């Protein structure tokens, strides 16, 4: 029992932080491989709450493959890790996230229309889907949509909310028209401050604040922000916002309003609960863009994503035959500066090697990476991957804890055993 490699493994595990929380020994390694649905300890990260782990299961919504069910109503479903082994996330496996249970279904494209107006618009307009497609130039962008609270379940201490593992995200090619072109048609007055978006979904009871979000007008008018009808060459799935949703590349999913029903150009900051109270970060904790018209003394809205990566090819406890390489593969992404490099360590962070980057799908998309590390000796290894963006932003070793559980980008520590 107290053989050399065993002691070494123990030592490595102690250094492996979250991964070290796994029980030791080969029996434990076997258990780790048979990990419950959506567990995160086997990814070399902190574990989601025990109640989450016990409650969640694989379940297929209509039109979707089985996803990790977090909650039935409103529906919150996470994409299993296996679907991130390619840079583009299939529509049928794309995560589902709603705040409120009043989701009209089915929504018929022929009945749908988009209202455009507001106190800083020259005129009120209404567009059918056919008009939007006919009257405006098509635009497309490959972009990661990631929930602000992706990995919330990994926060220690835990925070209340939807206890997401790593799969409240996906990357797709979005196609539609530019929001700025549509706003220009309605006319944007000087003094416009924010653009306020509302979707057709709403609360279960009238007293609950409707989910309404706003963007700074300069962000809304940027070339990359789209009203999308298509995802990966297909109409948007119902659960991802059919028939049209907002695409805000680089910014977290909260701004990507689904079933988009109205956009209003406004001269005053939007004050509803979802802007003024929810989706806020303590000021100064993260180096992300500032939403100037929404700053409060203590906090500010979450805006762009932080740099992150996910190793998809290995599980903690996995055994690798001596002489075979450790294959480290995954995806990396950031807010749109682009991924400069992904470095991989197989010695608990003592040394790092640059991984090979895959095809560049555009600065907002997933970037695949891979590294093959030869093995010659048996023993335990701790595998880590660290993405760095072209602006020099890099992933963190220690969680930057915040009360709502946003921006988790802690480096994985995956324990594998060469045997």
């Amino acid at each position, binding site marked *: 029992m107290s053989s050399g490699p065993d002691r070494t493994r123990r030592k490595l595990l102690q250094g492996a932080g979250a991964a070290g929380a796994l029980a030791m020994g080969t029996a434990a390694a076997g258990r780790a491989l048979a990990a419950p649905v959506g567990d995160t300890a086997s990814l070399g990260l902190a574990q989601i709450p025990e109640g989450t782990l016990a*409650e969640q299961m694989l379940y297929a919504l209509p039109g979707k493959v089985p996803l990790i069910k977090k909650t039935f109503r409103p529906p919150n479903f996470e994409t299993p890790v296996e679907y991130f082994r390619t840079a583009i996330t299939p529509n049928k496996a794309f995560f589902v996230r709603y705040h409120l249970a009043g989701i009209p279904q089915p929504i018929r494209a022929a009945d749908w229309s988009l209202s455009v107006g507001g106190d800083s618009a020259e005129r009120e307009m209404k567009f059918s889907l056919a008009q939007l497609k006919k009257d405006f130039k098509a635009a497309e962008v490959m972009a990661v949509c990631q929930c602000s609270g992706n990995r919330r379940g990994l926060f220690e201490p835990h925070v209340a909310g939807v206890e997401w593992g790593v799969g409240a995200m996906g990357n797709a090619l979005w196609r539609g028209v530019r929001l700025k072109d549509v706003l220009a048609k309605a006319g944007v007055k000087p003094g416009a401050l924010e653009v306020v978006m509302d979707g057709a979904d709403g609360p279960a009871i009238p007293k609950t604040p409707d989910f309404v979000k706003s963007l700074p007008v300069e962000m809304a008018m940027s070339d990359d922000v789209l009203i999308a009808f298509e995802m990966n060459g297909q109409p948007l799935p119902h659960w991802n916002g059919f028939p049209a949703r907002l695409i805000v590349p680089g910014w977290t999913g909260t701004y990507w309003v689904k079933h988009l029903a109205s956009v209003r150009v406004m001269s005053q900051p939007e004050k509803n609960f979802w802007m003024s109270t929810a989706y806020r970060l303590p000021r100064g904790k993260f180096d992300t863009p500032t939403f100037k018209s929404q700053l409060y003394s203590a906090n500010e809205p979450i805006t762009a994503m932080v740099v992150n990566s996910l190793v998809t090819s290995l599980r903690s406890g996995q055994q690798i035959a001596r002489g075979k390489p450790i294959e480290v593969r995954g995806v990396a992404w950031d807010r749109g500066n682009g991924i400069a490099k992904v470095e991989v360590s197989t010695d608990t962070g003592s040394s790092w090697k640059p991984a090979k980057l895959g095809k560049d799908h555009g600065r907002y998309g997933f970037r695949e990476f891979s590294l093959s590390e030869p093995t010659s000796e048996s023993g335990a290894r701790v595998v880590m991957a660290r993405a760095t963006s072209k602006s020099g932003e890099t992933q963190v070793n220690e969680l930057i804890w915040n009360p709502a559980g946003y921006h988790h980008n802690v480096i994985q520590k995956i324990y594998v055993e060469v045997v």
Partner: protein
Amino acid sequence: MRTLRFTLSLALLLSAAPTMAQESKVVLKDAPGRDKAQVCVACHSLDYIPMNSRFMDKAGWTASVNKMINVFGAPIAKEDVDAIASYLAQNYGKK
């Protein structure tokens, strides 16, 4: 639009849409206070409760219930808050 949405969501609940059929299998632990805690189902499935366990103490659960009332307008009587929070802390609280 709010009225329309309300009607739609009620219809959704009443029609027991097939996507939600599985929801009825989520059952809260049988213990004193469960009846009062069932009111949560008016706005969301009950899996929200076990999902958020076990890491909140009674103060944490009380804050959650109060948020549901004060922010989301949950139809919970003020005098029931303590019983619901006690049930949640007892059965889904920090050990």
